């Protein structure tokens, strides 16, 4: 049972004026729309190529309830296929990672090569009368309707007519490089840590997109203990928020007077890594750091992939080391989310940097991270309240940065070297940008998809 048209229109109209009906964070009807209209179309991150480096390597990942095998086949190509046997629907792979030349269904032993093609089934002649009853040729596990890769990041869309991934990423690709392309070697991902939180998936996505306003208070404890110097309010409000393509993110303002290499050293990158960044990034990307003086921090690529880059102190002598994490807010229900949190590091980085950056990550983010702990406490509490009756009487104010007429209270930054629109200081421009995309998806009727009939009557 979905929300009726006028009710949905009212919800989306409120969201578009920056007033969010609180129940959207705990409403099963909204969740059904998100499943049918958003996740049935949007590009969704599944895995990184570094997780499946060799032929036969696979990981199994989901888009909501749909399980997909992400595998590197014998030719070295990455394939993504629906993890459901063509015969009776069993999952042909029930591990979450490994290496396999074939996937054999445990039910009746239909067997597929690691490129998805059906290799064999028992008693083909006796059971089916051979090729006439069931033609084995060209049968394969259903491929993801669309699959594309950028910087090694493997995305799929359940929409066979999805635009090319690079077109979708648009101007956000500029920012994605800071996290996933620091050298020609690209990044390598470790993990993910996986855990379930009783929170609506949208809250984390919006938070990472642009909530610099929460940092000084929610994360006051990490400043108290001297783990990370930047989140205090006086520093946080100097950062810029940017909106670019389907993404949005936050930055920290770097100390005045630094050049490109000096600013990278300030956040803890060793000299050994800086030349590769200088060569790999464009003049505009270098200028964001070296001239505009901003360093990327948290970001979200719509709908549910977030990224974070921070630089805590990892020992008593005050050594500052940066780390990168990619994380996915995998919806389980309107009240529950599985978090997948990866540590990411430049594949060409020195071994000691990888070790130290991993330590920095574990202390700050992920299942035990000292930042993330307090975030989740907030999000669980919001979700619990959003599921009740009173939440249907409250529209949450998400208009920070706008005056009563809907105009920005300050001009966009004129000297911001990155694409898109950027504002310095606090504001909810980014969350509104995320919610506009969400609204656009929710008002589009779901497409009717052709059903695949393998070996049916002719």
């Amino acid at each position, binding site marked *: 049972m979905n929300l009726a048209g006028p009710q949905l229109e009212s919800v989306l109209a409120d969201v578009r004026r920056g007033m969010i009906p609180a129940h959207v964070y705990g409403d099963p009807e909204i969740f059904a729309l998100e499943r049918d209209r958003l996740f049935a179309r949007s590009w969704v991150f599944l895995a990184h190529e570094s997780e499946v480096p060799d032929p036969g390597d696979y990981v199994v990942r989901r888009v909501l309830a749909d399980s997909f095998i992400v595998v590197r086949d014998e030719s070295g190509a990455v394939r993504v296929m629906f993890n459901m046997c063509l015969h009776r629907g069993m999952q042909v792979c029930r591990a979450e990672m490994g290496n396999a030349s074939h996937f054999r269904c445990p039910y009746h032993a239909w067997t597929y090569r690691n490129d998805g093609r059906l290799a064999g089934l028992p008693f083909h002649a006796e059971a089916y009368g051979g090729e006439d009853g069931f033609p084995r040729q060209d049968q394969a596990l259903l491929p993801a309707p669309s699959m594309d890769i950028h910087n090694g990041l493997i995305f799929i869309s359940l929409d066979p007519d999805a635009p090319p991934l690079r077109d979708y990423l648009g101007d956000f690709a500029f920012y994605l490089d800071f996290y996933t392309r620091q050298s020609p070697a690209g990044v390598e991902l470790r993990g993910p*840590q996986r855990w379930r939180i009783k929170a609506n998936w949208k809250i984390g996505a919006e938070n990472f997109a642009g909530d610099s306003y929460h940092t000084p208070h929610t994360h*006051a404890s990490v400043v*108290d203990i001297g*783990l990370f110097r930047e989140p205090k309010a006086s520093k946080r409000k100097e950062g810029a928020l940017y909106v670019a393509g389907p993404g949005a993110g936050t930055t920290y303002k770097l100390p005045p007077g630094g050049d490109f290499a000096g600013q990278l050293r300030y956040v803890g990158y060793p000299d050994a890594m800086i030349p590769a960044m200088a060569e790999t990034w464009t003049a505009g990307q270098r200028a964001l750091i070296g001239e505009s003086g901003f360093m990327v921090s948290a970001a979200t690529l719509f709908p549910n992939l977030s990224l974070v880059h921070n630089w805590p102190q990892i020992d008593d002598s005050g050594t500052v080391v940066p780390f990168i994490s990619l994380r996915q807010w995998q919806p389980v229900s309107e009240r529950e989310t599985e978090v997948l949190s990866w540590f990411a590091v430049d594949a060409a980085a020195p071994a000691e940097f990888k070790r130290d950056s991993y330590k920095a990550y574990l202390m700050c983010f992920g*299942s035990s991270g000292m930042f*993330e702990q307090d975030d989740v406490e907030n999000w669980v509490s919001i979700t619990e309240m959003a599921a009740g009756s009173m939440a249907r009487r409250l529209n949450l104010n998400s208009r920070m940065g706008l005056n009563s007429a809907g105009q920005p209270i300050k001009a966009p930054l004129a000297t911001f070297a990155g694409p898109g629109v950027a504002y310095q200081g606090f504001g909810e421009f980014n969350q509104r940008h995320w919610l506009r995309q969400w609204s656009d998806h929710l008002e589009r009727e779901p497409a009717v998809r052709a059903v695949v009939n393998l070996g049916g009557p002719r």
Partner: protein
Amino acid sequence: MTAAKPKPLPYTDPAHQAAHQFLVEEAALLDAADYPGWLDLLCEDIRYLMPVRVTTARGAGFDSLADMGHFDEDMYALRKRVQRLATDHAWTEDPPSRTRHFITNIRTFPNGRGELRVESSLLLFRSRGDTREPDLVSAGRTDLLRETAAGLRLARREILVDEAVLRTQNLAVFL
């Protein structure tokens, strides 16, 4: 021919009894949220490790990640965590969780270098607030206990959690 599996010390062995008592006393400190007291039980060169468990096929040869943990801590990192919980801004534990560390199935093996390798089973019950379902974390632990002038101290802990996907909102608790 495979080497014989090492046998645990008899339960009547004083070394086993000392190890058992150490783990029970440690659990009492954790359940009382006496984290500074807990830190005093750790060696300065502690390694506190909790690998990510994964679901793999039988015969894959591994069921945890070698290069990714939920914890991989040294003394600096553990001290920071304890310092954080003592601030006025550690919201996730304010109000605090009610926890109970159930420690059982303790087996003690001398490692031949003056240390005890102690295996135990842990069930952590964690309750927060008044409306939420409680969380359970089940794990096996392999500890290295070292005899020091101050008594037994924990030199290493490896926590082998029994879930691939944790069902607790975070690890703002020690296991």
